[in-house]
């Protein structure tokens, strides 16, 4: 069974700086895969490379077996890759409803289906239903995170790239995010989860990659890893 997303030895540069030195990983259909590592090792960059926001100078990204490395970002979104960036990036001047519509208003989606999707998301995130006519920028940090995820769900994605969803959130919200990841998983979406929160990631994921200095250094099945393990300490310890 070929993986949903396969990243093959990609290298990226930021100006003269060589940010990814040959990253390879894969995510299977419906799988939750965690990507761990300290700040600045290239986790976000890897997600951006998959999403076409950063172009690899070398290497390939494959989606359902086909190369997507040089496709424009908006095509990737239409193909079924959802992206929830670090710092959320909701459209601050658009209402919650309008934010959702950016993903909802697509070709080939019937009005009935749109209503369905909307209701589903409002069920999962009642706060968003309440604030549906409020501007995105007026929401709290946690609410914006929910909006960012809900917005990606409007695309009915096959895989969601989640970049540090719990960053800056209160513990109560963190557990809510944990639940949302489960929801996404149940909906059948694969997830590539970039996180600094190790326990959460180990709990939520099926497999883990650990990155250091622009490369993947370790790969393991999540259930075999403990927070206290030497490996974790080596790559993530303070």
């Amino acid at each position: 069974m070929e993986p949903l997303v396969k990243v093959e030895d990609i290298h990226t540069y930021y100006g003269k700086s060589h940010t990814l030195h040959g990253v390879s990983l894969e995510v299977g259909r419906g799988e939750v895969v965690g990507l761990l590592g300290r700040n600045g090792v290239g986790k976000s960059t890897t997600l951006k490379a998959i999403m076409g926001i950063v172009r690899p100078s070398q290497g390939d990204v494959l989606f359902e077996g086909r190369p997507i490395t040089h496709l424009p970002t908006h095509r990737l979104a239409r193909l079924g890759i959802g992206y929830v960036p670090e710092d959320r990036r909701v459209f601050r001047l658009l209402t919650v409803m309008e934010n959702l519509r950016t993903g909802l208003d697509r070709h080939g989606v019937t009005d009935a289906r749109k209503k369905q999707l909307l209701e589903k998301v409002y069920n999962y995130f009642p706060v968003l239903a309440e604030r549906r006519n409020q501007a995105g920028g007026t929401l709290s940090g946690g609410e914006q995170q929910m909006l960012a995820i809900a917005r990606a769900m409007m695309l009915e994605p096959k895989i969601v790239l989640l970049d540090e969803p719990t960053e800056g959130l209160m513990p109560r919200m963190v557990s809510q995010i944990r639940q949302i990841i489960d929801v996404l998983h149940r909906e059948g979406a694969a997830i590539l989860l970039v996180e600094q929160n190790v326990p959460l990631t180990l709990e939520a994921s099926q497999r883990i990659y650990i990155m250091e200095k622009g490369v993947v250094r370790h790969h393991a099945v999540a259930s075999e890893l403990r927070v206290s393990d030497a490996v974790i300490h080596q790559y993530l310890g303070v």
Partner: protein
Amino acid sequence: MGIPLEQLLQAIPLEQLLIQTVNGIVTGMILALVASGLTLIFGIMDVVNFAHGELFMLGAYVGVITLAATGNFWVALIVATLTIALLGAAIYVTTLRPLLGRDPLTTILATFGISLVLQNYALWQFGPVARKIQEPFTGHFTLFYLDYPWYRLVIALLSAAIIGALWLFLKFGTYGIWIRATTQDRVMAQAMGIPVPSVLTVVFAIGAGLAAASGVLFGPLVGVNHAMGLDWVLKAFIVVVVGGMGNLGGSIAASIFIGLLESYASLWVSPAQAVIVSFVVLILTLLFRPTGLFVPTPK
């Protein structure tokens, strides 16, 4: 100037002041129409379109030709708007899109080059003699002691209507959301599947169309000639900066403001010198409220 203000104002009959107010609003509305295209373009792609005045000018010329061919002003208006919108799209795709990632200086230069080419093209095709667009209806009404042409009022109303339609388009409807989303965060708009490259092209075309419409509407008030764009480019820039770059509502308010200021100023100085007023407003704005006079102070 040792003359006290009251004495100055007393010297001007109230009626003249009121007429200048009306004039100011009329000019302001046209300016708003031109500026709205400019600010839309800047807001969504950070491009300072130096060639905007030439799109205005070419719109007027297309209006002249169509009017001569069909005898109908309104058809001329529509044809000019659509033609120049297409021209705008073509210019964007060939010249500006390749420059998107680069230093903003390059787009200023490129649009400056385009304005040179378009200006000289018009000079070549139409010659240096000014043409006239006949207004769709003559006829005056009495505004105080003047016979004020209906047409001027109609321009103001029509401009307001077009801007209103633009606002509605942006506020409701999927494409309006796409445009606003792209303006706010181009990368995330793409990540949501919005076809940003074509949205940018469409917005540039809309901006160009708006400029062309202003050109046709304003045509009957002045002569149509190849240099008419220069003046308007400057004024439109001032309006866009004073109103807050990328802020549609702000640029409309700023247009009226500047229109009125220059109108009042021309009570004392010649129109050629009245422009200095708007220059001074610009400089003051940049010094003290650089994000725009009509924008709430940013946090």
